[in-house]
């Protein structure tokens, strides 16, 4: 069934279809309508779940950590400072290998206070050990939320599904709601290896010393470093698993095919723009305009940022002359985080394209199509010189 609704409703509907059993969230703009919708689903009996109201984001994720430890499928959502407030638990959920799914409606981080869109919030959590998916439209949101539960439970790694605040969270767009029975056939109920059980008590995530030690049976138990390395290795495997999940999803629902990088007119492109989120669709207009002028432009929207899909990205970018990375976040004092990742991925390529970096849209600064057009045109024509510092689009002072 197709409906016209907001991105937040798309996310909530995905969570309902995935049959999340515990929802704990604290409202924060622009995520609020998502949690309201979920509480409405639960209250009206449309969704069989515990909706647990909490006093903060830190508690919201703590509740999900506890719920997932008992074997429940748990979901939360947040934005901006709310995500940062739960940051301690964000790291914990990953280290504890709990398959929680969290939506992040991307919003700028204070100070100064700002409720509008950029992606600094989720990018700042890049190294927490969560899988991060980025949606470009409402269909992506609902599909990725459903896939996220599958991926999280398969890998035993929590997943963030990130989508641009307002631009996606509050705008209305048509999208297809997957059929409930088909979602059930795609996503089996969560069956954890171990769920908290008073009849079979276990120690979970107790103090783990720097070195390995024997457990009470005399077997060598992993130390902190082994546990963390395993998280990293499993994260890398998540890339492969996502490909499998995407195939399965495609077979059932007929959507998918680009789990890592969604490439638009990149096959013959001399220049390729790279970004996260809805900006990749905005840039399609610019690509079309530049192509009219004979500039072979393409755009690639990265679908999964951690683990980083380096190989898939290199496959798309390797024959281009230039790559332009546009970001709504910055690693202060260095450059855009995605820019650094793209350059690192391209390093082994012999004939490397040049890579430029633009920072834009921070704190909801309007991203004008004409500005994108001018920036891309400048990068494609004016110089192929190595510019290794980010340039800014839309600055007024």
């Amino acid at each position, binding site marked *: 069934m197709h409906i016209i609704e907001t991105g937040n409703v798309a996310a909530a509907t995905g969570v309902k279809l995935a049959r999340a059993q515990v929802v704990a969230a604290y409202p924060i703009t622009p995520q609020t309508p998502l949690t309201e919708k979920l509480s409405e689903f639960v209250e009206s009996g449309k969704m069989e779940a515990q909706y647990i109201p909490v006093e903060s984001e830190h508690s919201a994720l703590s509740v999900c950590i506890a719920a997932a430890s008992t074997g429940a499928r748990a979901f939360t959502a947040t934005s901006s400072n709310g995500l940062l407030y739960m940051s301690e638990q964000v790291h914990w959920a990953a*280290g504890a290998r709990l398959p929680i799914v969290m939506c992040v409606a991307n919003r700028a981080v204070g100070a100064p206070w700002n409720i509008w869109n950029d992606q600094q919030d989720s990018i700042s959590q890049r190294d927490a050990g969560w899988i991060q998916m980025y949606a470009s439209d409402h269909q992506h949101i609902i599909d990725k939320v459903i896939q996220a539960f599958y991926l999280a439970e398969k890998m*035993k790694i929590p997943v963030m599904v990130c989508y641009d605040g307002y631009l996606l969270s509050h705008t209305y767009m048509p999208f297809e709601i997957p059929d409930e029975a088909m979602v059930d056939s795609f996503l089996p109920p969560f069956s954890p290896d171990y769920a908290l059980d008073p009849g079979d008590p276990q*120690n979970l*995530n107790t103090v783990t010393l720097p070195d390995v030690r024997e*457990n*009470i049976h005399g077997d060598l138990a992993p130390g902190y470093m082994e546990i963390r390395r395993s998280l990293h290795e499993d994260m890398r495997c998540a890339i492969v698993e996502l490909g499998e999940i995407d195939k399965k999803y495609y077979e059932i629902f007929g959507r998918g095919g680009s789990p890592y990088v969604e490439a638009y007119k990149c096959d013959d492109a001399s220049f390729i723009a790279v970004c996260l989120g809805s900006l990749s669709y905005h840039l399609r207009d610019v690509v079309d305009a530049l192509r009219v002028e004979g500039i072979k432009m393409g755009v690639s929207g990265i679908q999964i940022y951690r683990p980083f899909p380096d190989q898939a990205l290199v496959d798309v970018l390797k024959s281009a002359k230039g790559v332009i990375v546009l970001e709504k976040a910055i690693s202060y004092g260095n450059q855009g985080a995605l820019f650094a990742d793209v350059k690192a991925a391209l390093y082994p390529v012999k004939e490397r394209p040049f890579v430029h970096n633009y920072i834009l849209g921070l704190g909801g600064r309007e991203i004008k199509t004409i500005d994108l057009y001018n920036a891309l045109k400048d990068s494609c024509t004016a110089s192929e010189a190595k510019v290794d510092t980010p340039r800014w689009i839309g600055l007024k002072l």
Partner: protein
Amino acid sequence: MGNGKYGSVKSHSDPGPGDGGKTGLWRVLRPVIDLEKCIPAKTDKMACFNCWVYCPDGVITKTIQPVIDYEYCKGCGICAEECPAKAITMIEESDFKNEGE
């Protein structure tokens, strides 16, 4: 890449003495009970046991002569602090070096 047994390496274990490692190795000061002063030892009655109650590691026995398991006692000194008979003295671990422990 990978064996499909994702998340098999994590902090998850059966509980029991020693699951946190041999914490006795952390000890700098060793609590030693003077049985002449210890109330249950002196009176032969199941009395007091403040040390047993307060020890955060649960390594003191609730027996007529309370016994401390030095394999896991971290030497925090709480037992000595809580003993109403001042029967427990914290002694430098280095003083026991030559005992071949």
